[in-house]
């Protein structure tokens, strides 16, 4: 009778598995899943996105369609596999019928694929901004009221060529679908205006040593387009400065945000004057934006100004709550009516009007900004220009846009 006890222990542990399955009770509240990166390299961004979602919930007094809202969180580490696992848990175990998320590019594509297997659940994007989440092979029940990374670049390429006078630009970006989309958006305009991009460098997320990347940048470029996020941006910029780099910079949407502008060190000189573009701008004067900033600041641990992640989760959550009010919280038909309302929804956000195209991707205003020094010496993104109502094909005819091909390391190209 060897091992009896051990095996009995295994039995006891296994019995514990069934207990939670029995205790799933249906409460009379509207469950909404929020999927974000609460672990890994993007934790800070994930926490800020949750603040954005909660700002929307508070705006509605914690109620939608007459029911109390219950937020259930799911965590990923920015890898597509973990995002799908977290989404599965929220949908299949917690029974949410509405899910807001995920945060980063390839997660969005993975969750979209998963959405196809759950036709009765409605998925609203978080802040994930890869083009192919909605543009190629979209899911009927996946909605993106935030825009994609190429849309965020609206106006930047033209501005860099015409106003800044940069004729050749090298790019440095992280090696996954969101930066591909950003580079695509920048180059679509820049190359059309006549600019050349002779060199593109792709670096892994979390890279620490950029010396080989910096050495590979040609000396004769007029500027460097940098689409790196968080710590990666700080590491690259400080190493570039130490290496004696002189070329001016052009920023991606998450490259020159507050997390980088407030970083310690001597980045100050090389950052001032850097143009960038994105779905938000720090110095937006509109009363709607200011009201949003005030509401956002009531959340625990809020930044001085909401990041674009908080903004994207806010917009998507608000869309869900508006549509829930419209159908009076009735999802008994598998959410069909709810999704119909969502498809036709058009509403005012802190950054202007948002509506959806036929792929359920948002059409919204974009902001061209430039890093400038405030009176007290801090850096902020000054609003230069608003590009109104940018759609996913960037104003290009859809067939022509599709012919440009799928975004990747090598597409587009104009050396």
């Amino acid at each position, binding site marked *: 009778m060897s091992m009896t006890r051990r095996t009995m222990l295994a039995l006891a542990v296994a019995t514990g598995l069934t207990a939670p399955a029995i205790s799933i009770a249906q409460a009379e509240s509207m469950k909404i899943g929020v999927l974000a990166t609460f672990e890994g390299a993007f934790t800070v961004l994930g926490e800020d996105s949750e603040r954005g979602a909660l700002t929307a919930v508070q705006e509605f007094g914690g109620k939608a369609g007459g029911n109390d809202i219950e937020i259930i969180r799911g965590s990923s580490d920015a890898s597509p596999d973990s995002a799908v696992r977290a989404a599965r848990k929220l949908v299949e175990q917690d029974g949410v019928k509405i899910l807001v998320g995920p945060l980063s590019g*390839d997660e969005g594509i993975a969750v979209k694929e998963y959405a196809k297997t759950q036709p009765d659940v409605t998925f609203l994007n978080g802040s994930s901004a890869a083009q192919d989440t909605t543009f190629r092979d979209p899911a009927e029940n996946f909605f993106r009221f935030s825009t994609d990374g190429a849309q965020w670049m609206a106006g930047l390429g033209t501005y860099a060529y015409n106003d800044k006078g940069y004729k050749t630009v090298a790019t440095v970006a992280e090696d996954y679908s969101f930066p591909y989309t950003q580079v695509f958006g920048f180059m679509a305009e820049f190359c059309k205006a006549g600019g050349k991009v002779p060199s593109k460098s792709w670096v892994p997320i979390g890279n620490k040593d950029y010396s080989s990347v910096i050495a590979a940048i040609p000396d004769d470029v007029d500027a460097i387009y940098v689409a790196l996020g968080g710590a990666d941006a700080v590491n690259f910029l400080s190493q570039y400065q130490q290496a004696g780099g002189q070329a001016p910079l052009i920023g991606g949407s998450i490259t020159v945000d507050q997390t980088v502008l407030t970083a310690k060190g001597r980045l100050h000189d090389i950052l001032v004057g850097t143009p960038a573009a994105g779905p938000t701008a720090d110095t937006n004067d509109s009363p709607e934006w200011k009201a949003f900033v005030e509401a956002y600041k009531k959340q625990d641990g809020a930044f001085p100004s909401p990041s674009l992640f908080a903004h994207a989760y806010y917009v998507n959550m608000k869309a869900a709550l508006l549509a829930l009010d419209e159908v009076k919280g009735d999802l008994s038909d598998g959410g069909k009516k709810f999704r119909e309302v969502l498809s036709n929804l058009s509403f005012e956000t802190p950054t202007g009007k948002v509506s959806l195209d036929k792929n359920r991707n948002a059409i919204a205003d974009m902001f061209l900004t430039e890093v400038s020094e405030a009176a007290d010496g801090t850096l902020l993104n000054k609003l230069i220009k608003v590009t109104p109502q940018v759609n996913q094909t960037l104003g290009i005819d859809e067939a022509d846009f599709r012919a440009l091909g799928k975004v990747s390391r090598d597409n587009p190209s104009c050396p």
Partner: protein
Amino acid sequence: MSLVETQRTEKLRGSGWRELVTPAHGLLLLFLLVYPAMASDFFLTQIGGYSLILGMIALSLMLLAGYGGMVSLAQITIAGAAAYVIAIFGENNSGVHGFAWPWWVITPMAILFASVLSAAFGWVAVRTEGIYTIMITLAIATACFYFTQQNYALFNGFPGYSGLRAPEVFGLYWRDPVPFYYLCLANAVVAYAAVLYGARSTFGLTLQAVRDNPRRMRAIGYNVTAHKVFAWWLSGLIAGAAGVLLAWFNGRISPGSIAVGPAINILIIAIIGGLRHPVGPFIGAVVVVLIQTFAIDLVGAERFNTLIGLFFLAVVFLSPDGILGLWERVKPRPDRDAWGPGPERSGVRE
């Protein structure tokens, strides 16, 4: 080898199948067989199936560490290699490769490839001992992770492959909750029984002797390197089978699945469960999957990893032998030395 050791070994070799299959095994198997009747689909696949898969990968580590004294951090890499074979030669919807070969070709191919790769890793690693084996396998795992993440021609880089489908055989789609659970269970039972039996085979006993005193074994004429590499190959079979199931389970494979975090996760599962007995990795997997899935509901999104860490710390602090050892500590028996392979025979030796 002392006289006592020899006698004990003889006694062990005499024990056959009947002694291995105890009533408790029967009860456990019965419970696992009727589990689908009690559990929701989520508990069936996301907890049950996933635990069995991770348990198998941890079992392949337990085989190496427990019987061979070689702690490997590259087991998830080996499983990932099998999953990538499935993705590249089977069907995927990523638009890269995806030769759509039939499942009965790619499945054995994936497992075989994983086992050969495992033997190759082993060939490199057996030249080292103890902490150096851990370091060299960690280096291999990290290198493979970065390589897959940056190579687009073969591995499709960061996004990896999606749209992997389990086969449809006998009119069943094997990724449906109930068939998939039984598929995982069948694989796990075979792997478990094979390890349990193999540990008492001539090879298993030789391997344990090599672990305890390689110099002496070499002196009496055993090829120590060959035995160790063969153990790596065997563990590659188990990890490879688990890798195929993992690919079907997630429906996708990307470098995120074989990163350093998941590699250490496998070690945690094996340590939490206990390395003394093949059931340990499965207990560890169930506990780890449950806590990783539900910790976020217990303490909220900001601190759930702290809870997981504290729990692991508590287990390791209270019992260096994992949950199996904890059980023995809590429930002392008068005939304690008499049951099961004790630490002096199958535990990890320092």
